[in-house]
Structures are given as structure tokens and as C-alpha cells.
């Protein structure tokens, strides 16, 4: 069990780092597609966490099925999101985040 604790703790750090990188990307960019890429990196972090938990607890069956579900769902979200981005581009001719501030107040 001590081994699992160590593994979880060590690789948990990488989960946190990936999440930081992803959020950093979402926050700082001004390009909608790059925002989606940031989102994907955050998702990677979560996937990694799930697999890591499976590895640490030995419950790999559930973890894998969860991860697979997650991957399927995420791809659909990304598809729809990029569909929105493409529609935005068709409409405005640009995918600049700063044009995206009509709704406020």
C-alpha cells in the first residue's frame, strides 16, 4: 500500500501541473481555437488522474471504463465547440476572443 501512496502522490503532481498549463492557456490566449486546446489539456489532466487512481487502488477496470466514457464524451464536446468556432469565423471573419464581448452587464 505504501507504494501506491507514493505513486499517487508523485504523479498527482503531474496532474496538477497539466491542469495549470491548460488553465494558463485558456486564460491568456486571444484565439478561440487555442482556448479549446487549453481545454483539451485540462481534460488530459483529468484523464491522467482517473488512470492514476485506478493504478493506485488497483481498480483499473472501473477506471478504464470511466476513462473511455470520458474520452468519448470529450470528443463530442470538442467537435461541437469547434463547430461553434467555425460558425463564429464564418460570421465575423475572425476568431479573436476580444470580439467576443458583446454580452455584458
Amino acid at each position: 500500500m505504501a507504494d501506491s501512496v507514493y505513486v499517487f502522490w508523485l504523479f498527482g503532481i503531474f496532474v496538477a501541473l497539466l491542469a495549470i498549463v491548460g488553465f494558463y492557456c485558456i486564460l491568456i490566449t486571444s484565439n478561440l481555437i487555442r482556448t479549446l486546446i487549453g481545454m483539451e489539456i485540462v481534460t488530459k489532466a483529468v484523464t491522467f488522474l482517473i488512470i492514476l487512481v485506478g493504478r493506485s487502488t488497483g481498480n483499473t477496470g472501473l477506471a478504464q471504463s470511466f476513462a473511455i466514457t470520458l474520452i468519448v464524451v470529450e470528443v463530442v464536446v470538442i467537435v461541437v465547440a469547434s463547430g461553434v468556432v467555425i460558425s463564429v469565423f464564418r460570421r465575423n471573419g475572425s476568431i479573436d476572443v476580444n470580439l467576443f464581448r458583446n454580452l455584458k452587464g
Partner: protein
Amino acid sequence: MPTLLIILPLALLLILNLPLLRAARRVSFWLCAVLALAQVVATATHMGGLIPDLGAAFDPYIVLQLRMTGLSEVVLLAIGIVVLASLFTARAMIADHDERFKFGNLVILAMMGLNGTALLADLISLYVFIEITAVSSFILIAFDRDSDGLEGSFKYIILSAVATAALLASIALFMMVSPDTSFAAVRAALAVSQHSFYVNLAAGLLLCGLFVKGGLVPFHWWLPDAYSSAPAPASVLLAGIITKVSGIYALIVVSTSILTVGGAAGEVIMVLGIVSAIAGALLALGQRDMKRMLAYSSVSQVGYIMLGLGSGTALGVAGAVFHFFNHAIFKSLLFVNAAAVEGSLGTRDMDRMGGIASKMPVTGVTSIIGFFSAAGIPPLAGFWSKVMIIIALWQAGHQTASVVAVLVGVLTLAYFLSMQRRVFFGRLREGLGEIREARMSILVPAVSLALITVAAGLFFKPVFSKIIMPVGEMLVK
């Protein structure tokens, strides 16, 4: 019957989308409406105990881990009603047959996701079904592909992704202590390890994820944009039921069947409830856009639900559930009316309206009913649920919260009055002489929803003792 509620919408969708059945698309609206109506009728009769179980015979063949509780019945009923309202509004607002067909598909998909959310008892499935609903609503918001709709949709996608990440991380962390992700297993595991850092982290992340989905202050940012920029029938669905089920219902279920309400989680929920109730009402006060005002009013009403839930008593939770139902009804009613007004005037700017009650009497009267219910004026249903919440708070020793809840009622009255005055009362504004009452397919849901609100208020006694209170007692064991 629980299985059918999930399988039938999916089957209908698959059949409708078969390339061979192009002819069926012409009647797709009616098929969708019949499905939603069937859900309403089946749930209502089941609740009334008139029939044992419509689809019990089919259940053994498909094994899904679903559970039908009193709470799910209330939620399923609300889902059916709001979906019907949204479908009828779409019939009036969307002219193109093909577009309407796609819209109907998305609504039914969303309904399937909502039904699943209302019936399941497993965290991973909760995630999946919340996402089904969310993806359908992303598309619904961007349905017209106008600039505002796309912006609202994208903001919802991004903030929803943040929420999803929190949700997933928390499920993963719960898996550290529990062999299974079903509610019962997680609850049992939490009973053993309450004080672990990671378990508390997981609980916090789970709550935050659902706070974003439900639009509580300070997690509400996407909500006004999404509600106000969505096409009219989509905002009926969004405001009426989608965010409520995937955020608020999920919070009710999670906090009663996994976390134990009344502890630190209960305190967090209550504080956010107070903040949302006040901030939502204040934000609504300053709006010019009719739908945006209604959106902020949703934030405020959700605050009430959270207050009832946070009180942790049976009466409070029952009040929260009843307010949930009432809110679904009166908020969709108000959004249907907003759709009618928008359809007739072509604008949502309240400063460009005035006195249109004389031209649109049905819309005017039903919106007054919805507004009275939202503001908690007796004897409409909204009054009872607010009273239940306030009494529960007082009894649970949260006197301050109870007083705040009462005072927010004044603010609610203020912004709704301002809306009524700017839109419906007074002298008809110049240039609006030509407007006419909305089409029948908008008036039908408006009148029906108004009648439901009135009926639920007048027959509060049986509703309370037969349906609502048992739910509250079941949830707080």
C-alpha cells in the same frame, strides 16, 4: 417505466433519423410532443397512484441501474411539462420545417439526458447524462448561428468545461476510497473516511462543478449570456429545466444521498444561496433586456432553493424540491411570454415596450400570474414553497437567513414590478399599434403553465402532504 423513459426518446430519435423515413419527419413535431405528453401523463398518474407502473413489464429485459423515487417523479413531471412548452414555442417561432425537425431532435435528446439525470444513482452516469444535456444545449443556444448565440454558447462551453473538469476530478478522487461510484457505495465509503484531505477536496470540487452548472453566484457568469442569447424556445428549455436539473437537482441528490446535508457542505450551500438570492435580484433590477432580467431572476430563485436545501431539515428540503418544481413552471411561463413579446415586437429591450397588455391580453394576464408566483404572492404555488423554505430556515435556527429570504422577496417584487410596468402596463407606446397577440401555439403553453401554477397553489394541501413532504422526509433520513 424508468427504463422506458430513457430508451424511448433514444429510439424515437434513431428512427426519425433513419434515411428511409423522411416522411416521418413531417410529423416529427407531433411525435416528440406525444412522447413528452406521455411522460407527463405517466408520471402524473404514477404519482397519483392511479396505475402501478406503466412499463414495469419491460424493465427486467434491460438492466439499467435506475431508481425511481418520489423526487425523480416530481422532476420527471417538470421535465415533461417544460419540454412540451418548449416544443410548442418552437412550433410558433421556427418557420423552416427542416430546422424545426433538428430543433425537435435536440430537445428530445436534452429530455433524454434530463430523464437520465433524474433517474440514475451513479456518479459516472451522472457525468455522462449531464454532458448529454449540456451538449444538446450548446447546440440549441447556437442554433440560429447569430453572433450573440454563438458567444453565449461558447461561454457556456468553456465554463461548463471547467465545471466538468472539477466534477471528473472529484469522481476520480472518490474512487480512491470507494470501490464503486454508485451513490450508496460512495456514501458508505465517506462514512468511514470523513476527515481525509482528498475526500473533502473531492466533495468541494463536486459541489463547485454543480454550482457552475446550476449558475450560483459567483459561478453564474455564463448563465445570463446563454439564456438571453439563445433562441426563444431554447431559452424556455434552458431556464425552465436544463440548468435546474443538471445543476440544482444534481446538487439536491448529491448533497442528500452522498454528502450529509447540514454539515460544512450545508453551510457552503446556504451561504451561496444567500449570496445568489441577493446578487441575482440586484442584478435583475438593472436590466433592460427582458430575457436577461429573467435569467438573473433565475439566479436569485435558485438561491432560494439552495437556502431550503442548506437548512438540512425535511421541511426545508421539501420546500427546495417544491420551489424547484414551481420555478420550472413559472420561469418557463415567463420565458414563453418573453418569446411571445419578442415574436410580436421583434425586440427584447424593455425600454422600447410599454402598455402591450392591451394588445396582448392573454400574454399580459399569464405573465402577471407567473410574476405573482415568482414574487411569492399568495395563493400561488411560489408563495407556498417560499413560505416552506422560510419556516424551515427559522426552525433550523438560521434566523438571519430566514430574514434575508423575506427581504429578498421585496427586491423580487421590485424588479418584477419594474418589468411589468415597462412591458405590459401603462399606455401603449407609439409605433406599437400594429402588434397582435401571439400565435395559438405560444398561448397554449402559456395558459397551461399558468393554470398549473394556480392549481398547485390552490391545492397545496394535498400536494404538500401526499407528494412534497414525503420527498423531503425521504431525502433527509
